[in-house]
């Protein structure tokens, strides 16, 4: 089997409560990858490049250009509970603020600048509390555990 290059972004501000769900997801992947007991489950994580971001921005078009698969993990304020994994495609109708770029916009910019865009998914993890602070709410913690399962399911379904 060809080794696929996988990149996982954990997006959000870990100083803003549940906005830290994305970074926490990546930290859990990182922790799982370093555990001998879970090396089988960690195989996808071992093969993953893991990146943290406050928000996506234009340079991430460069970061993704040589990968085969990208997963954007981020908190959502109003998405389905507990977490959803959806494929995302380059967007050709753009009206965005560069305070943050959407995954679709990053894919579109990558395609325009570098001639290709990887297959990509957004992992939206439902959050509830956005106040300044470093802890996740209890419900968000629970959703994070489900998010790990969604990621594992994706890797299984793509045979990675």
């Amino acid at each position: 089997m060809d080794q696929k290059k996988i990149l996982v972004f954990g997006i959000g501000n870990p100083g803003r409560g549940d906005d830290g769900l994305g970074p926490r997801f990546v930290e859990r992947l990182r922790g799982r990858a370093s555990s001998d007991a879970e090396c089988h489950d960690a195989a996808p994580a071992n093969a993953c490049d893991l990146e943290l971001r406050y928000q996506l921005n234009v340079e991430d078009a460069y970061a993704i250009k040589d990968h085969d698969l990208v997963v954007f993990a981020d908190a959502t304020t109003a998405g389905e509970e507990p977490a959803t994994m959806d494929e995302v495609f380059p967007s050709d109708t753009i009206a965005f603020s560069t305070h943050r770029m959407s995954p679709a916009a990053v894919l579109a910019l990558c395609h325009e600048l570098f001639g290709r865009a990887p297959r990509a998914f957004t992992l939206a993890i439902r959050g509830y509390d956005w106040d300044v602070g470093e802890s996740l709410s209890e419900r968000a913690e629970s959703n994070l555990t489900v998010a790990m399962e969604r990621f594992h399911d994706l890797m299984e379904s793509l045979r990675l």
Partner: protein
Amino acid sequence: MGRKIIIEPVTRVEGHGKVTIHLDEAGNVTQSRFHIVEFRGFERFVQGRPYWEAPVLVQRLCGICPVSHHLAAAKAMDIIAGVGPEGLTPTAEKMRRLMHYGQMLQSHALHFFHLASPDLLFGADADPAIRNVIGVALKHKDLAVQGVLMRKFGQELILATAGKKIHGTGAVPGGINKNLSAEERDAFLKAPDPLNADKMIAWGQAAVDFFKDFHKKNKDHVDGFAPFPSNHLSLVRKDGALDFYHGALRAVDAKGKKILNDVDYRDYLDHIGEDVRVWSYMKFPYLRALGKENGWYRVGPLARLNVCDFIPSPRAQKEFEIFRAYTKGKPNSMTLHSHWARLIELLHAAEIIKDLLLDPDLQGTDLVKKGRKAHEGVGLLEAPRGTLFHHYRINADDQITMANLIVSTTNNNEPMNRAVHWVAMNVLDKKKEITEGMLNRVEIAIRAYDPCLSCATHALGRMPLQVELRDARGVLLDRRER
């Protein structure tokens, strides 16, 4: 009946803002405001926390400019730790400078290539679907690629100096917690094209040349868009040089006469006041010497180049001389010339980054100094958007008891309002039809100041978006929500 035109949110600036323009029954502009409607209270949040946490805590303020807050807080904490503002070890100061100049490079690159260039390249009346970074990528691919790679280079410098991409811990009270290894240095100096220091200088020069060429072909528009005289404020080095990291506070008026003559920024409260208005949570700083009415000032690239005497790097100095000569040595008050100034600063940052990378002090091992603890500290620096003020007091238990932050965008509050008003008076006044292009010109005026509204009111960034149309008596005519 009178109409109120509201633009919300301002696209392509960090955070959100609302613009309100009030027309009377004849279509004359009677009032225009750029205002923020959220309040965060971050300064209260840090109270009670140990002072050494401040440089990391303040990075929660904003994901766009965390390094500025990190370093400004660290400078304030240096004083509390008993190390004067100029008492760091050479390694510590130069590591912080490398972090800061790396941030300037990537922030200025982002702003010009991806925030401002769509307007400049396509014009204010272009279809919004292409007047954005994808449109730039389609038609001017080289520019878009350079912007992306300059961002990446700057972000990698921040990682190498701060230790982490998010909530970096590089700067600590009294110093720094890591140096730059020879291997890390070589990754920036000797990497193959394009991600090396020499290429950043070349692209910085190309960016300035691009703007000068654009200016030559669009002189009337660039010079004539929202010019208004103002005071200007910035830090300057002891010898009057442009310095992003440290210096004395200087202010000049619209004719170039000094209002603040290189004062110690620790005494800023003696010289800077903060006014409040009922319709905005963002404050309105002013120079006390001139009073609330006339004491407002610009900060940021245009102000810095109006205030300093010279730029201490050769290519940027040459461009600075051309810039200054354009207004015959007098302060430049043309809003869109902020982009020119920003690109000269981008070039300067690239040159200084190379100089720092060549300095063996970065591999030094003397990282932290300690002294006799103080209970109050002030830290100022020149953030990408302008002068940033951090001020803290602590108690006997080392807990923060007071924090006062004046962020760059707050300093530019009145100038942004003046720019909006110029557009309202010159573009919207007496018009029977309001076009997308007219509204975009209001945003162009604001974007020239590169505001980071997320910091300016310390907002959570989840404010509801509302557009309201009200008549002269305040009666709601129409409302849209997003």
